[in-house]
């Protein structure tokens, strides 16, 4: 028997497989703007961790003999009204920004998601109690709510985090509730229950993974807003008060000197802008990389 000209075995080899991690890497790093965002975030985290070694001066040290200096060799970004080095304060400010951002987001996301899951899944009385409570909370503007809570608790970092967290829980609960209501209708949830899955298994192993994507996008949107909210609180006198170095309050402090010493406001302002941009880009990249449906593209 003559051999076929194309060997059969050439077609029985499966195409090369890539692992989940490789796929994720390809997806996430495929856009250069996401990489830029990631780099900015990494720089910021590096700065926050190594602030004591990077900052040229002690951010709290006042030098009343040289206030409001323009950027010069000794002080690369100048000094503020009390002679504190702006550059050092900007560097230390990254710590506060990250801390507030992650702490508040962490608390709010966990509490909000669990509340939203329960409200959406169980419906009825449970949903009524949770959602009406959230509705009431949401009807108060977040800044005002945080203001009231912070003034009751007193200012300071810890209380600012608590105050902002309570306000931030609301959008996550709402979104989660809505997501659960629509995910619940899907056939595969019924199929899971037909296989004998319990309520908690259905909620956490099946509904929750399908809800991640919008939550991730929401997280990145909220992170920037939180930094701005903190600035607002500081402006109103509650929140991170000087001498604590926080970008938000630095922008407000420097506002009065905008014409003469723009660096005082611009430096922290640009940092806020870069960080918010970075979080948004990274969130975008994460969402695309984690979406199982887009996996075919990478």
């Amino acid at each position, binding site marked *: 028997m003559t051999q076929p000209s194309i060997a059969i075995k050439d077609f029985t080899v499966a195409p090369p497989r890539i692992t989940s991690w490789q796929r994720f890497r390809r997806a996430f790093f495929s856009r250069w703007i996401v990489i830029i965002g990631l780099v900015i975030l990494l720089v910021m985290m590096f700065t926050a961790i190594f602030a004591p070694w990077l900052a040229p001066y002690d951010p709290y040290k006042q030098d009343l003999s040289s206030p409001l200096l323009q950027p010069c060799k000794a002080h690369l970004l100048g000094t503020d009204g009390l002679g504190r080095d702006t550059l050092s304060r900007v560097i230390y400010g990254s710590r506060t920004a990250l801390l507030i951002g992650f702490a508040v987001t962490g608390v709010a996301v966990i509490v909000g998601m669990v509340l939203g899951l329960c409200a959406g899944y169980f419906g009825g009385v449970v949903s009524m109690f949770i959602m009406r409570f959230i509705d009431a909370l949401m009807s108060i503007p977040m800044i005002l709510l945080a203001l009231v809570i912070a003034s009751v608790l007193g200012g300071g970092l810890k209380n600012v985090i608590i105050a902002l967290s309570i306000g931030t829980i609301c959008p996550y609960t709402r979104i989660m509730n809505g997501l659960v209501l629509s995910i619940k209708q899907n056939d595969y949830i019924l199929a899971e229950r037909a*296989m*004998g899955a319990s309520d908690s298994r259905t909620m956490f192993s099946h509904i929750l993974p399908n809800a991640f994507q919008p939550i991730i996008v929401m997280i990145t949107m909220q992170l920037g807003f939180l930094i701005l909210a903190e600035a607002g609180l500081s402006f109103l006198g509650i929140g991170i008060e000087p001498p604590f170095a926080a970008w938000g309050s630095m922008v407000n402090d420097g506002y009065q000197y905008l014409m003469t010493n723009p660096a005082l406001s611009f430096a922290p302002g640009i940092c806020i802008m870069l960080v918010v941009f970075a979080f948004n880009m990274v969130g975008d990249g994460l969402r695309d990389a984690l979406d199982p449906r887009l*996996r*075919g593209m990478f």
Partner: protein
Amino acid sequence: MAVILTVENLKTQFRIEGGLVKAVDGISFHINEREIIGLVGESGCGKSVSMLSIMQLISTPPGEIVDGKVIFDGKDLLKLEAKGAEMRSIRGSKIAMIFQEPMTSLNPTLTICRQLTEMLELHLGMDSQASRKRGIELLKLVGISDAETRVDDYPHQFSGGMRQRVMIATALSCNPRILIADEPTTATDVTTQAQLLELMKDMVTRFNASLVIVTHNLGVVARYAQRIYVMYAGRIVESGNSKDIFGAPRHPYTIGLLKCVPRLDEALDRKLVPIPGMPPNLIRMPPNCAFLPRCQYHIERCMQEPWPELREVGNQHYVSCYINTQEKQ
């Protein structure tokens, strides 16, 4: 053959704004070992709801199982708590169900492996290695080629027919006694339909399970089912062996359904004969036979007496009708 599931006078209702929908209004049937039965009826007659009621998967705020018994393994399933551990252990491992839409029946964020092995780990307590092996075996059984690598893929990487095969594999993974297929082929094309039905028949024979095919397509049950139940407006109107139902149908509804199907051995220009009228509104059911407005054989008695009880007209052949349609044909 031994009876493994008996349903007695099952009644399921849904309370909605417009009133009380009597979706299932007193049906009784039984399933024997290693048997394939067909549950036929048009959309809205209560077939899916009756199957969901057996598994207690009805959403209880609007829906409620108000009467009846489902006897399985010597126990009345309806007496068990819907969300309780006992009922959950029966679902999936003793009675399994597959659904109509393969595209949405699988969780898009989990791999096939995870979805297959979850049942095995949950009901049989297998560890992840063993369940993964078993999962790959099952995928091979249902005809997914390259199973070792495909098992780690996501549902969107499978076609509809393949997803339905995965669903069949998942449903049979714990060796259930009964597999309920709720319109399993409605959403697939004809060639895939044939493949899936052959596969299901093969699988239940191999696993010694019984199969319930719920469908509105008579052709599907004609070939595979040994016994058929015909449902209309929440009740069973005719039941019997396939041969009797197709060879000598008695209920005007069944006769009408069979007349709707074009036949290969008749003239091409014969007009199709649909059943005139519409199915009844399940909220405002008349006290007499619900098929009356559409029935061409009806007599005076049909208008005055309540919905007829099932009476025996042949060997295991029951009909819910006052007329002897055989003489009228």
